[in-house]
């Protein structure tokens, strides 16, 4: 479908909904296409190609929200879907008033995806990995794609976007004959092939594999008593990131706070009665920023047509703002901060994170370790989880080290950082000046939607004062 046809059908849908009595309507047309390759233990599991196009229409009529999606572009089919949406006895939905936007958003590719020989690069990387004896099992994946979208609503917004993306995954199991350790790694973002440069990805995987082997061969196991008495912990950006995402980002999503997601992705320790809660120490400022160029969570306009901006979730330790869509913005008497995202045209936009991070401070890693004196340094994780309200989490150290006499010591095999959220963020004593983001796909909703995000920020010293 040409871009003119795409715009024409979207405008028809919005106009039909309006004629059918909708107080508000929007339409989102998306064409996405791409290809991917997966190698498991060196064997190519073929190739997959997709080229899909569809439309999502949302409208609010008599304060009820209706959403439908289809890949049938006939006007009659769309009119039928809108007509089928009969009023139900339920909750009121009112959207915040937002400024109309007319925009075009095109992300460029420094290295063209169409010109890249992904398969050749993936196979040559796999060949290198296959020669590393201690990488016992390996799965590698690479995929590239492009999404062209058009959004229109009854407020007068018209937004056209083109977003190329590149993704690469690796799963490795390192073994020395006696013991194994596993790691998942993800690379990529919104942009061209440069985001999954095979040499950079290969180097990162090899480095991670070597570090895991070092943990296996030289690592020590701490006793239960020793583990309990680790009071100073330095966390690397990967750990900071997962903690930011799970214990600050998610509970700061308005649809969890106000229980729309209660039967799906869960609730929050934040409630209407504790807004402005002191979540952490004054050293903690946490931001969610969709505008970071080429990041996995990049977007400039959300799926409700609202221009985005960095959202300061926690400022100097105090909960500052929730992630909101237009519905929750109206509910709270505010403007939307553009957090409505869907993974695909066929799903409804939900309140989501984008790129969440702990704002860097001034300390070097050496200063964080030195300040800790003794304790543990966690560089990466494999197992993690958190409870429904996001109050109690655990991050298992995949690569972790002892800190002794103000210096980094031996690797630790069995360190797990398990704590209450409020204790965790109040323990932040010093924040590093480094900045790194890790990729993820964040699941929410029913049907489950996985949207691309990043998480990270700076390293930090946590002192639990045991």
């Amino acid at each position, binding site marked *: 479908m040409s871009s003119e046809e795409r715009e024409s059908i979207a405008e028809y849908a919005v106009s039909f909904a309006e004629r059918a009595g909708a107080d508000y309507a929007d339409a989102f047309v998306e064409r996405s296409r791409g290809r991917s390759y997966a190698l498991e233990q060196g064997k190519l599991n073929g190739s997959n190609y997709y080229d899909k196009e569809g439309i999502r229409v949302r409208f609010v009529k008599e304060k009820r929200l209706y959403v439908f999606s289809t890949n049938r572009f006939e006007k009659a089919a769309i009119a039928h879907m809108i007509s089928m949406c009969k009023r139900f006895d339920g909750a009121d939905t009112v959207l915040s008033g937002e400024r109309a936007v007319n925009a075009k958003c095109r992300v460029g590719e420094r290295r063209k995806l169409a010109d890249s020989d992904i398969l050749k690069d993936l196979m040559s990387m796999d060949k290198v990995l296959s020669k590393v004896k201690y990488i016992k099992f390996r799965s590698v994946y690479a995929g590239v794609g492009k999404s062209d979208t058009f959004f229109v609503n009854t407020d007068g917004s018209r937004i056209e976007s083109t977003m190329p993306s590149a993704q690469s995954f690796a799963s490795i199991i390192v073994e020395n004959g006696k013991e194994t350790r596993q790691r998942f790694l993800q690379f990529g973002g919104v942009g061209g092939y440069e985001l999954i440069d095979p040499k950079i990805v290969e180097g990162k995987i090899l480095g991670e594999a070597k570090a895991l082997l070092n943990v296996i061969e030289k690592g020590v196991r701490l006793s239960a008593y020793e583990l309990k008495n680790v009071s100073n912990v330095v966390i690397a950006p990967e750990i900071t990131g997962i903690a930011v995402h799970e214990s600050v980002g998610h509970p700061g999503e308005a649809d969890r706070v106000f229980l729309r997601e209660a039967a799906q992705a869960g609730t929050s320790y934040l409630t209407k009665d504790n807004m402005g809660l002191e979540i952490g120490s004054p050293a903690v400022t946490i931001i969610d920023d969709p505008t970071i160029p080429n990041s996995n969570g990049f977007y400039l306009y959300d799926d409700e047509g609202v221009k985005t901006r960095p959202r300061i979730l926690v400022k100097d330790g105090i909960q500052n703002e929730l992630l909101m869509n237009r519905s929750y913005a109206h509910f709270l008497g505010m403007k939307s901060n553009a957090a409505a995202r869907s993974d695909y045209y066929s799903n409804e936009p939900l309140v989501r994170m984008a790129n969440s991070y702990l704002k860097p401070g001034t300390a070097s890693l050496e200063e964080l370790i030195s300040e800790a004196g003794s304790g543990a340094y966690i560089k990466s994780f494999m197992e993690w989880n958190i409870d429904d*309200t996001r109050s109690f989490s655990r991050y298992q150290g995949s690569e972790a080290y002892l800190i002794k006499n103000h210096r980094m010591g031996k690797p630790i095999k069995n360190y797990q950082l398990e704590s209450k959220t409020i204790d965790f963020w109040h323990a932040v004593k010093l924040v590093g000046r480094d900045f790194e983001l890790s990729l993820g796909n964040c699941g929410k909703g029913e049907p489950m939607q996985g949207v691309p995000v990043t998480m990270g920020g700076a390293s930090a010293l946590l002192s639990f004062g045991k």
Partner: protein
Amino acid sequence: MYIVKQAMLKGCDEAVASVFSYRISYLKIANSKVDSIVTKDERGGSLFVSQGKRVFSTNIDTLSGPNVAAAIRNAKRNLAHLEPKDDYYGIASGPFKYRKQEACDSRIRDYDNDTISDIAQAAINEAAANGADNVAGTLILSRSSETIATSKGVHQAEDSAHARLSIRAFVNGLSAQKIAASKRLKDLGPAALGRTTAELASMADSNGKVTSGTYDIIYMQQPAGLLFSMVNEMACVGNVETGGFLMGKLGKTIADKKLEIYDDGASSKIISASRFDAEGCPTRKTQLIGDGRLLTYLHNNSTAAKYKTKSTGNAGLVMPSPNALVLEHKNTSKSIDRLISGIDKGILVTNTWYTRFSNYRSGDFSTVPRDIAVYIEKGRPKFAIRQVDVGSATGIRISENVFRMLKSTVRSANDTIQTASWDSDGYFVTPSVLVTGVKVTTA
């Protein structure tokens, strides 16, 4: 069949084409009200082809002659550049005999907004009448049809429809969640689901704390399904070959002797089951664990040929995938109350989520109880565990190893149901089970 013929005319060795349509509505319940209704209506197709052990798959979004031709041209172009998959041995050769297609429930097939609102409201009302101060959930009504054709003699169609209702009830700061699913709307029981979910959330008279340590744990059906279905997932031979925890365990004793685990793709009552798999092979019920031993892995035709065995009806065209967990235990108590009565120090876990492995090779994982968990002492429920005084937070974590869990699953209750979990794509047919000596840490 047209797509397959065209692909074969263009020189492919094999072709599998699937044409589908579906309409699914998701009604969301929030704050004890119907929040919104989202409907998806799609049709399309897919094509899998192989040539000289090279394999390629694609979707065909719009099923017109020119689009099919373009998809086949694209497939051929890609095949020419691929490396052969040396261990690929082809799709299943038909024709096959299949179980009879059952008629879809017309009430699900022809639903409208009024029908789905009424079902949701019945559950909300009954939960509220039984003490729920807030109710959340999702009602899904789904109807779909699929036709599959292959170059090896398969041409079959299947229509299906099902309803699934998830209810989470909050009672005095505690919560419970249950999921019912059925191919017959009359068997969904929304009112009963609302009532029993609210009753579960309020089953303990008081709250209390436990210490980190070892407990006997009863997993109700939903968490049992979620945890034990990991066996089905990891029995798929693709996961075995990449170092999953069942690698090298075939024929070995890995479980309690009275625990039986099946993968069932054939039952007409299981939502995720169908008459044929992705290559048209008839599905079946496959016993994975019996007499304590791992009996087989799950295969499609190609992986079965590689391992000189027969397909278990679990295609996945490139790699096998599981159908549905069926768990049985020969050591059965009459009820969950009887199961509780035999425990000296334990925990009843009603729901869990965020099950994450530290190492798929060793089978070490942890999981977090999400809704009410009840401390059991001397055969009686004593209190609801509240380690963190925030919302419905329970604040305990279970650290486990798959093999330790399988060997310590010593008894079940006689309360088997079909259920599911928000945290998984699958369906489970399982009773509540007792696992002894489980490590628990607390907030």
